[in-house]
């Protein structure tokens, strides 16, 4: 089975090589005439005000957190789906229970406004 992964490794080396070579090429061929204005951050011609790295809304955390927890659920669904033929109705009910419990959390998050983007 390990043999099936060897081509992936070769392909990876090829792709990584391609990426690196194109970086080197653009470094080698491009002209280099930097000046202060050119190297300043893009602000539609204005002088940048303050640092770019501001703090973001906690929304982004909530989205990533919900994604993480539902991703875990999805990960359980994959092995379940491939053996589903053997599990039959039993498998349906075990997954129903699993999903219902997680849906409770989903509804909670919804009710608490974690899914609202506007606020």
């Amino acid at each position, binding site marked *: 089975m390990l043999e*099936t992964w060897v*081509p992936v490794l070769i392909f990876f080396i090829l792709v990584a090589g391609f990426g690196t070579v194109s970086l080197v090429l653009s470094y080698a061929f491009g002209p280099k005439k930097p000046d202060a204005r050119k190297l300043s951050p893009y602000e539609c011609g204005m002088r940048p005000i303050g640092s770019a790295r501001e703090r973001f809304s906690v929304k982004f955390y909530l989205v990533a957190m919900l994604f993480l927890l539902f991703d875990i659920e999805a990960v359980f669904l994959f092995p379940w789906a491939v053996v589903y033929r053997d599990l039959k109705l039993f498998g*349906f009910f075990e997954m129903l229970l699993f999903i219902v419990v997680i849906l409770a959390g989903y509804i909670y998050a919804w009710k608490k406004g974690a899914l609202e983007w506007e606020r």
Partner: protein
Amino acid sequence: MSEYLTSSDFMILMIKIIVIFGGVMGALVYLTWIERKVMARVQMRPGPTRVGPFGLLQPIADGLKFLFKEDVVPANANRFLYIAAPVVSLIPALLSFSVIPFGPWLQVTDLSVGLLFIFAITSLGVYGIVLGGWASNSKYPLMGAMRSSAQMISYELSLTLSVVGVLMIANTLSLNQLVMSQQRTWLGFIPRWNIFLQPVAFLIYVVSAVAETNRLPFDLAESEQELVAGWHTEYSSLKFAMFMLAEYANMVTVSALATIMFFGGWSGPLVGPHWLKAALPTFWFVSKIFLFIFFYVLLRSTIPRFRYDQLMNFGWKVLLPLSLANILATSFVVAIS
């Protein structure tokens, strides 16, 4: 070890890798031409015409231009991450072609977990965007990157969940076997494609795929009227081209996955002499992918952009429950039948 490197198996493998890599790179470069032509036609313009017949040499001219452009690294950018980000986003995008079956024989390797391998690889693509935006140390890129990554992970979820219904029918994660499971026909002429069994999953998949690849109408990351160009505002020369290449590669990957899972992959009528029978599957596969891409471009040129809150609400409040309901409904039907 050394006998493996000189064996004919290894030679065949290398030929396959070169054919697939070369073909994919050529196709990606020419996708830009197709996109510009189709968009131009929709807007009653001729599109590129100057370079070569029908502007066919335009992508090559563009490539050369990218190569000879100045390679700017902004002064207060985070140099290492700034340079690494395009590579980080390009590698996963191209690596997924190592498992896609372009035909019964034309596949680099058929992993037993091929589908999940693609999901795993594409989930790493987020980092290229996040790091690109963060390392630029500029406001528009950072906002674009945060938006884009939040959008990508939200829709990645429904993308992953929409596939589960198909897996319940096919019971395999190997992409080649997924295609094989759709070979037969109903009543002798309707192909046994999963789209007829899983229409809801297919709809969810298509919507999520468009959002996942940051294409219009979901290109909130680089909505040019608000954020200039999103996370790659500060990028120039070949680094910018690499981001573009990664975006197009992702587009082809999701189209290829849609074809494999819902449209029978490389299956199609086989006629004619032997050499034609060997070549036709690849032709069918590429044509199906092309149809998807065409649909993408039409979508881009016809539908206006969503608002960001609409987008996130749609993903979390409509697509996610819908895909869960689809899974439960499918499993119930499969269980009682």
